[in-house]
């Protein structure tokens, strides 16, 4: 029981990070129908941007307040990652819109290879580790000499994710931009006819996706404190799994899918074998797609002649 509760806490933390990345996949898929293969690497780039911002703040500018530092890192990472993703969409995906269906996918795979190698070339191939940013934990209760703890950084991840999700939900459901996005998702031509700037809306979708990935990236850096150029692929595939599990195109589905994948992964590591935790996540992906292709909250895909 106590092990289960501890794994529940760990799993939800990991799942929040996956959920934030998964929103990026699901939004982009919903609006232009492509799997943005480079999204995992955009996440990795955001971790590096957060790393640079952290080092800049702590060593050069000497910011000591951890709350202020985290807030600034978050803002910097969101800003620069959005810029990166905006440029990627402009250069690599927009020229291919409405073209051959496989072309954007290949372009995205190329972009993913480019991004991870760009970071390898500019920042070096070694793991980058930093001292823990946030320390401290609360012992919730102790049972059979096994303390169930909630660390401060886990609490921060929960809080930040929750706040960001509320902001994001407000953006999508209540604002003009959100309305435009939902309109483009349903019918781009019709949306353009009634005066929605489709290009701008798609660009903004990539910007929002990147901003959420950057939040996930900052949380990842704070939680693990280590990153390398190759760290984009596996979280990317798992977040995509989360998006598929929740039903691709569905925003609440992405978050719930993310938390489920996080839980499955931690529970599997705790009770079965840590070596095969990625196999668990990938098997969930395969099983979901085979037996429940529309996911938990997705709309079934109707095939027309």
């Amino acid at each position, binding site marked *: 029981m106590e092990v289960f509760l501890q794994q529940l806490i760990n799993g939800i933390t990991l799942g929040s990070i996956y959920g934030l990345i998964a929103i990026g996949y699901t939004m982009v898929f919903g609006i232009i129908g*492509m*799997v943005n293969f480079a999204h995992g690497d955009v996440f990795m*780039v955001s971790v*590096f941007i957060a*790393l*640079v911002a952290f*080092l*800049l703040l702590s*060593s*050069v500018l000497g910011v000591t307040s951890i709350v202020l530092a985290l807030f600034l890192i978050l803002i*910097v990472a969101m800003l*620069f990652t959005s*810029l*990166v993703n905006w*440029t990627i969409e402009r*250069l*690599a995906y927009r020229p*291919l819109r409405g*073209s*051959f*269906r*496989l*072309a954007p*996918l*290949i*372009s995205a*795979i*190329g*972009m*993913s*290879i*480019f991004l991870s*190698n760009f*970071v*390898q070339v*500019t*920042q*070096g191939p*070694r793991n*980058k*580790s930093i*001292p823990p940013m946030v320390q401290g934990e609360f012992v919730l209760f102790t049972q059979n000499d096994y303390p169930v703890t909630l660390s401060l950084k886990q609490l921060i991840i929960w809080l930040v994710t929750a706040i960001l999700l509320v902001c994001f939900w407000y953006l999508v459901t209540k604002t003009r931009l959100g309305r435009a996005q939902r309109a483009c998702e349903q019918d781009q031509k019709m949306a353009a006819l009634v005066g929605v700037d489709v290009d701008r809306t798609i660009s903004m979708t990539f910007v929002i996706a990147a901003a959420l990935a950057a939040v996930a990236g900052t949380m990842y850096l704070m939680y693990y404190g280590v990153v390398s150029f190759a760290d984009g*692929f596996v979280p990317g*595939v798992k977040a*995509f*799994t989360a998006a*598929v599990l929740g039903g691709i195109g569905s925003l609440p589905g992405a978050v719930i899918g993310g938390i489920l994948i996080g839980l499955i992964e931690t529970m599997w590591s705790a009770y079965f074998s840590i*070596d*095969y935790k*990625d*196999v668990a996540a*990938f*098997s969930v*992906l*395969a099983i979901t*797609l*085979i037996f429940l*292709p529309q996911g938990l909250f997705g709309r079934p895909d109707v*095939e027309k*002649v």
Partner: protein
Amino acid sequence: MTSGAPAKRVDTARALWDAGLTALLAFGLFLPLVGFETVTDVRNDLILVTRWPLLFAIVAIAGLGRLAYSLAIEPWLQQRAIRPSAEPAPWRRYIASWIIPFALGFVILYPAIVIATAGFGRAVKWIDNFGIQVLIYVMLGWGLNIVVGLAGLLDLGYVAFYAVGAYSYALLAKTFGFSFWILLPLAGILASFWGILLGFPVLRLRGDYLAIVTLAFGEIIRIVLINWVDLTNGYAGITGIPRPTFFGIPFNAEEGGFAAVFGLEFSPIYRTIFLYYLILALALLTAFVTVRLRRLPVGRAWEALREDEIACRSLGINTTNTKLTAFAMGAMFAGFAGSFFAARQGFISPDSFTFLESATILSIVVLGGMGSQIGVAIAAIVMIGGTEIMRELDFLKLLFGSTFDPTQYRMLLFGFAMVLIMIWRPRGLIATRDPSVVLKERKAIGKDLVKEGRG
């Protein structure tokens, strides 16, 4: 101007404004990761080092490049667009009809040409790193072309079958001592068996979903190879895999070795040349089988499936069997290539079978133009040969200083080239298609009519 349309005047102020914006964007993009480098200092702490000159060089290049584009290149492109496009010159057709025999002759004579130009000692490197490497990818590209190009099933886990072939050969040859010539077909059969096994559950999926599930299967096989240490020796891989023999005569310096039997002086080049012709034969076999299969009912069913699955079903084609045969055929050739790879390297580890390999092979197929065999071969030469040549560009060291290492930029440029080629030719290098069945005269199918399938 005779064409009547007035040439757009070059707006210098606007060009400058655009260039400024581009430079600003480049500054924003490259500031965090190029402007700062995270390095570990002597105390093992991570510190920041600034690289302002490099950052400003990149920003300046971006700005000036944009300026040159709007002042010179854009007007030139517009000029060109105004001119009516001429009929394709007859010499193009002439070249097209001679390209295949010429290319065949070249690849057959390639070792001789290399030995003649680079000398006996240095030829090994060129035949091995360049010739064999490119041919492996040509073969893999042709194999995947059956699945993606003909049947229209998007497979991102193709490397799994390559791995099955390689590990089958390595394990069976080491444990039971079977020869390469027995294990080559066996590896192909085992791989195609896995193709059917993995193909079954994904039959209902199409498009991107199929791609992602096959990716997941590919990764699962790799993770199993890493973690099943008793069988595969995990990350450390399998060493000392028996090398192929010349129909029973080993390539070594001993009494019964190849050199001794044929009365030659021992040199490692004989094995390299033999391996070159072996992979050439295997690749040509793949191409030949594909060409013949396209004329058989099953091949036509593949192409029909790619064009329209619902129409296929209503015409009574068994889509399950059709898809499974495509998976099995594609996997079989990957298995052949895998066992060749294991025999050539003498060492395999899970590192050789990452997702990047699958992505590379798929991109070769798509960049070449799905379904076009010549296109796939050209794409393999450009992408793999191009990145291999990057290893040889030592003269760049003179240009950028001795610390400059061109091999570092190999994959960076590879990814960049994938994006560029897709933007330049979204349908691949060779977008037209030859019909497999014709009524009276053979006409190329224009790229507007070429479909891609949704499977």
